[in-house]
């Protein structure tokens, strides 16, 4: 009986201390801003608008999380998402009639093309990192420059706007009252959670992140696992790009440049270990919600956007310091304990 209860407890959210802390933190942020700005922040309109903005950051952050779980990093997420969005936008504008009508088939084709491009971008990262053994930071820095450069070169730096209304309806519509992007995000989060918690690929990802050498010696095909994380990361980035394009009804080579910092802040705040081996999808989604609330709250309190940028950097550094201090204390405690015994 107690074993059953233990198993139940370990499968619920509260079993993870980091997630519990984050939930408390989320509530705290919610209360603070609701108190200080009840007329603007604590309104249904604001929550709806947040629900439209959260998904894109959350999906990009989940992409970063996947690469971080293996001890790597993917800096090319935003460049990939913009490139995918631009391709989709190009196809859409090419095949729409004068008055903005387009068949559903072409919308599907455009989305599929974007997703395919995302997979290709992820594949290039996978090739550089898993096959050629290039450090993930460097490889994705290079592909970030390349993908972004191709996007700028193809468009001359001008954004493609005026996408067909049917396409824009996806990103701005609601599904039983819930914003469609939010529904998509929940689906993607569930799927990724399923992969990393319930599949052998997920287990291998954690093992590689915990100890790459040991994973290599156990002949689990560590290169293939790492390749998969970057391919999935590319796929998720392209999905985020399509959602952004649909919500904005436009695609541009320099949308969301600040999202790289934001995504890494989210991932670290969400309790993912940047060295690899630990992290949860729930944590990442919660962290996105916290940061979006902070952003909206700052906005409601009329702080300027650069103050929010400083706050993001501050949160990143503070959370890292907090983690390091906590880790050191735990280690010295366990050393003391082993010395005593």
């Amino acid at each position, binding site marked *: 009986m107690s074993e059953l209860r233990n198993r139940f407890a370990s499968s619920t959210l509260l079993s993870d201390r980091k997630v519990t802390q984050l939930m408390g933190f989320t509530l705290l942020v919610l209360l603070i801003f609701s108190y200080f700005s009840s007329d603007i922040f604590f309104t249904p309109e604001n929550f709806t608008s947040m629900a439209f903005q959260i998904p894109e950051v959350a999906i990009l952050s989940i992409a970063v999380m996947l690469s971080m779980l293996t001890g790597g990093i993917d800096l090319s997420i935003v460049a990939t998402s913009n490139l995918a969005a631009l391709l989709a936008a190009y196809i859409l504008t090419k095949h729409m009639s004068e008055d903005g009508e387009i068949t559903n088939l072409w919308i599907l084709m455009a989305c599929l093309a974007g997703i395919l491009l995302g997979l290709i971008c992820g594949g290039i990262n996978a090739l550089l990192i898993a096959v050629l053994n290039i450090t993930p930071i460097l490889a994705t820095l*290079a592909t970030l420059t390349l993908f972004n450069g*191709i996007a700028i*070169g193809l468009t001359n730096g001008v954004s493609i706007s005026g996408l067909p209304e049917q396409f824009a309806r996806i990103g701005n519509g609601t599904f039983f009252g819930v914003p469609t992007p939010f529904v998509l995000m929940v689906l993607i989060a569930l799927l990724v959670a399923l992969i990393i918690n319930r599949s052998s690929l997920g287990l291998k990802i954690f093992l590689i992140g915990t100890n790459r050498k040991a994973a290599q010696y156990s002949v689990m095909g560590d290169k293939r696992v790492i390749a998969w994380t970057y391919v999935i990361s590319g796929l998720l980035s392209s999905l985020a790009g399509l959602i952004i394009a649909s919500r904005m009804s436009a695609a541009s080579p320099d949308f969301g440049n600040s999202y790289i910092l934001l995504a890494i802040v989210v991932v670290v705040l969400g309790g993912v270990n*940047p060295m690899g081996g630990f992290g949860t999808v729930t944590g990442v989604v919660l962290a996105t919600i916290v940061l979006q609330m902070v952003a909206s709250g700052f906005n409601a309190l009329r702080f300027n956007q*650069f103050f929010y940028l400083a706050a993001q950097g501050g949160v*990143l550094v503070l959370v*890292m*310091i907090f983690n390091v201090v906590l880790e050191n204390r735990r280690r010295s405690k366990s050393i003391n304990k082993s010395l005593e015994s």
Partner: protein
Amino acid sequence: MRNETVLILAIVIFSLVIGSKSPEFFTLANLFDILRSSFVQLLFALGVLIVIISGGIDVSFPIVGIFAGYTAVVIMQKFELDGESLLIPIVLAIVIGTLLGGVNAIAIAGFGIPTLIATLGTAGIFRGLMLTLIGSSFISDIPIALDQFSTADLVKFESAAGTLVRLHVLVIPITIITILISLILSRTLFGRSVYALGGGVEPTRRLGISVKGTQTKIYLLAGALSGLAGILYVSLQRKANPYDLAGSELDIIAAVVLGGASIMGGYGTVFGTVLGVLFINLIKNNLVLLGVSSSWQRAAVGALLVIGITLQAISESRRNKRRRALSEGEVDSNE
């Protein structure tokens, strides 16, 4: 083949290709232009090189640079300091850059945060604080000495074709600084510690080198170089725009990496970095002469970077294989 040799070959081949297409490439004016656009980047690149050799990565340096440059100009104006003096703003910027480098040092050496994450965070903090607290408006009336310095030419004459050929006086101090950094890296205890640190943190500690001390010095020095680069950028542009430079980190990291510095740490040369910076500028400045639109500059840098790191990775794995084969051969002969 050494990385520097490959780069020199690449530069020569590229120059010949462009030169054959457009005769205006092989002029002194063009060479001096490339040099002029390389000064600031080279200073940044030297700081990045030191960080990369030590096994870290810094993405905050352009923000540190513009923070230092912009703030120095703001302080000059606010306290009505002597606008005729060139030394005051430069010293101010270096001091500010060093202080910001100190913040990086605290995060990295003090708390042991991974360098990419630490500098990503501090870059956000610095940029956010600069634009909210110090100022977010463009300053075009920078101190007179800084303004005049932008046209302080060492050599200036009119070529036969009638174009003005100018070599900026900065070529001397930048050369001196470059040689100095090279000497520091190769001849001082600090420099060798930087290489040791890049080779491995634990072995460095066992050697009796203070890891934290070395890291602190690295980020202070990188901060100082960025500060200097920032104020020179302001001077050469003849305006202080707080929104500038952000996003330029990729080009400079690309130049350092193309110059052969290993991002895993432990390897890198000043000469390679100089070549890397010149190569990137050569390509960026002359893409137009090849008939390629300038909007493809970034893609060109990206493609170069991808090719560069791929070549390095392939030669690295080949070297490893050879080493393994050699050591296996030794084992065989021992038996």
